């Protein structure tokens, strides 16, 4: 009652004092980002309403006819919905499973290379694939995996990889790792450079083997980054973009290559049906948020309270 209100007043008072004292923090440091966020992210947010409407540009977002959950039910009741959902989840979950550790391993290995020259050259090679666009990547994949392509020549076979649904996931994930692992290791390399060299020397002198060194020195340096990356990726599980899957899709591997995004692209975007695609986007987002919150809680528990 009176004590708590006094506390609250004190708290508010303290806050105001702080803000005035540190006004630079707010006005100079935070404001640009905040302004951009409000203008370009929050103002268009009203557009989510499109998902519940039959959008008509003449009537605008507020004036269009309200259809409630019609788009959602259309999406959820299509006969293959579960298959699309499953394909999407499998791609991202397995993608994460296989793809998440690789950049970390690369960063560890790179960190231990002594010769700066070699290290730089290797880094250059690792980062190169990232500079290619997705479409070009898929073109390369198709060329290499074609019946008369290099992979088949090497193996002496005539397997048509692109027509096999079983192969699709591997192709998708492996090419993703090929393209992104090197680039993804940058963030860990940067964090590792923070690792105190003195600590490392000390550990070595103490006779620690590699694992102990890693545990004592390198892991603490990148732990925070790893956690954040993990949580963020988990929260993006449902957001696989359509471009790559669409480019790697063929008539014959649809059983595993038709994901939510490609289905929506064909049904929604090609017809200019923004309401439909917004609705699916919203659906995706909701699932992502649920996953994100869940993963965050779990990780926080394992990490004494430090999450996103």
């Amino acid at each position, binding site marked *: 009652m009176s004590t708590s209100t006094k506390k609250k007043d004190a708290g508010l008072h303290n806050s105001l004092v702080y803000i005035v004292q540190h006004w630079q923090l707010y006005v100079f440091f935070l404001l640009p980002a905040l302004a951009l966020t409000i203008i370009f992210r929050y103002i*268009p947010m*009203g557009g989510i309403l499109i998902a519940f409407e039959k959008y008509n*540009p003449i009537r605008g977002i507020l004036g269009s006819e309200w259809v409630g959950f019609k788009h959602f039910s259309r999406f959820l009741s299509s006969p293959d919905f579960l298959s699309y959902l499953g394909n999407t989840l499998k791609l991202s979950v397995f993608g994460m499973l296989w793809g998440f550790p690789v950049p970390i391993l690369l960063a560890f290995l790179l960190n231990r290379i002594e010769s700066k020259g070699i290290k730089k050259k290797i880094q250059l090679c690792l980062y190169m694939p990232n500079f290619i666009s997705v479409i070009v990547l898929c073109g390369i994949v198709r060329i290499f995996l074609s019946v008369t392509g290099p992979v088949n020549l090497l193996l002496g076979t005539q397997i*048509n990889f692109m027509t096999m649904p079983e192969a699709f996931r591997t192709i998708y994930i492996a090419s993703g790792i090929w393209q992104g692992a090197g680039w993804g290791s940058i963030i860990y390399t940067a964090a590792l450079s923070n690792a105190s060299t003195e600590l490392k020397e000390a550990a070595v002198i103490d006779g620690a083997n590699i694992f102990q060194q890693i545990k004592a020195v390198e892991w603490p340096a990148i732990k925070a980054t790893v956690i954040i990356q993990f949580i963020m990726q988990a929260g993006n599980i449902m957001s696989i973009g359509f471009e790559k899957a669409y480019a790697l899709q063929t008539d014959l591997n649809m059983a595993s290559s038709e994901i939510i995004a490609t289905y929506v692209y064909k049904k929604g975007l090609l017809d200019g049906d*923004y309401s439909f695609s917004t609705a699916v986007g919203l659906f995706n987002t909701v699932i992502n948020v649920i996953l994100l919150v869940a993963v965050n809680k779990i990780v926080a528990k394992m990490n004494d309270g430090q999450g996103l």
Partner: protein
Amino acid sequence: MKNKLVKRVIAAALAAGMVFSLTACGGGSDVELNTGELQEVDASELEFPLAEKATLTGMISYPANTESNPNNRTIFKRLQEETNVEIEWTAIQGDQWGDKITLAMANLDTLTDFIFTAGFGDNDLLRYADQGVIIPLEEYIDTYMPNLKAVFDKFPEYRKMSTDSEGHIWALPWIEQLGSEKTAIQTVGDMSFINKKWLDFLGLEVPTTVDEFEQTLIAFRDHASELQAEFNIDGSIIPMACIVNDGNQDPALLINGFGEGYGDCDQGRHIAVTDEKQVICTATQQGFKDGIAWLHSLYEEGLIDAEAFTQEWSTYVSKGKSGRYGVCFSWDVANIVDDFAGWVPLPALTADTRNITPENGSFTSGYDRGRCVVTAVAQNPALVCAWLDKMYDPFQSPQNNWGTYGEDDDFDIFELGENAQGEKMLKHAPLGDASPVEVREAESVNGPLAILDEYYDVYVTCPDDAQYRLDWIEEYYTPDMNTKYVYPNVFMTQEDTEDLANLQTDITKTINATRSDWIMNGFTDADWDEYLKNLDAYGLNDMLEIFQKYLDAYYAE
């Protein structure tokens, strides 16, 4: 405590977001909108050239790497002089058109009076019509567009095809007649071609039945090394090349003769019309089953290109250009091979019967319903329509479509000549080294137009590449066309268009995937039965019913 705070913050943020967005994105803008009712204008005000210069706005697409300002094109310069109407163009590069036009149609601030090269599908047309973004034109056509009206009067089926179920015409069409009925150039899309040089070299005749065809392919395969030696071919011999499920590169023509002879040439919808005016699904017929099984046997024997299921057009062409093909499929073999003279079209193959099913919608030759629309933003629709009517002038249409004459520099598609009556006529000019495509793209503007068969040799000569293809059709394919009806180009209601689109996505996907799978891997009777069951589950009968409904209506009038 923390949770409550977080929740409160989220709620506040979202609410704030909503409030902000209400101010920014609410409602339409200050643009005055046309409700679509006929706005009458005195005919004298529309006489060209106008007494006072008028300005209209329009949207147009142009091929990449060509002139980006439409007003610099000779055709529009001349039109501006003739009419005293200046057009402020919003020009969008062709390869970006698809993505950008839908956005443009959603933003009233950037919408123009008309969209010259809209090319909208039925779904789009009806949706925009429903939203009120485009206006109905049937009254304007009758009152202010004499050229187009004349075309409709000569060929009432075009008017019928352009009118929706409620009597509205929402767009001005593009019409390019090249032949008609069974001689129309569109009747056979995926034409089959055979390498005559190889046949002559091996002492073989052009096959006339499916068995002879198979033997021919086998001969190609078995004599591969001799062919390679004789013709200096780099790379392996491919007896039959195609791209399954890919438009004109699909080998559907080969199996036309199986079963009752319905074939399966409509790859988007897989339908055909029986002589009793019934709509059937071609992919569930006995003929389809037998035909696919036969194709599979060809594949098993290594006679079909292993890459036929996944390759891209460019790969297909590269291999063709190196002379490796025995049989190939395309709109025109000139696109695929370098040695044009060594190839001939392959006529129908007799299987159980002998038939070529003309493609659906082809009897009315080239027709694009949603080519040009007038939007709700147009303040003077009568003027817009009158201006657009100039495009349907018989002397103007060929120019818009193909190119023009009399440019100071560069090559022209046409030169101004005379027809037999001594009146002015556009003659296709020799191009020397210049690529016809490049010249066409540099000069033509597309958009709404009508070129009728009766114009040839009166207002314009027929283009060479069209002429020889028309000749091919007449010589090699028309005699075998025993089918009476094709599915016409009907204009369905919005509801039916949507339902159909939904049904088709799944049905077509299944059929095409199955085709590929079975040609490659073969199939059993059990597979066939399950396939039929799946199609039923996806609503095949509903789809056929919709098609049937409109077919009946079409012939009822």
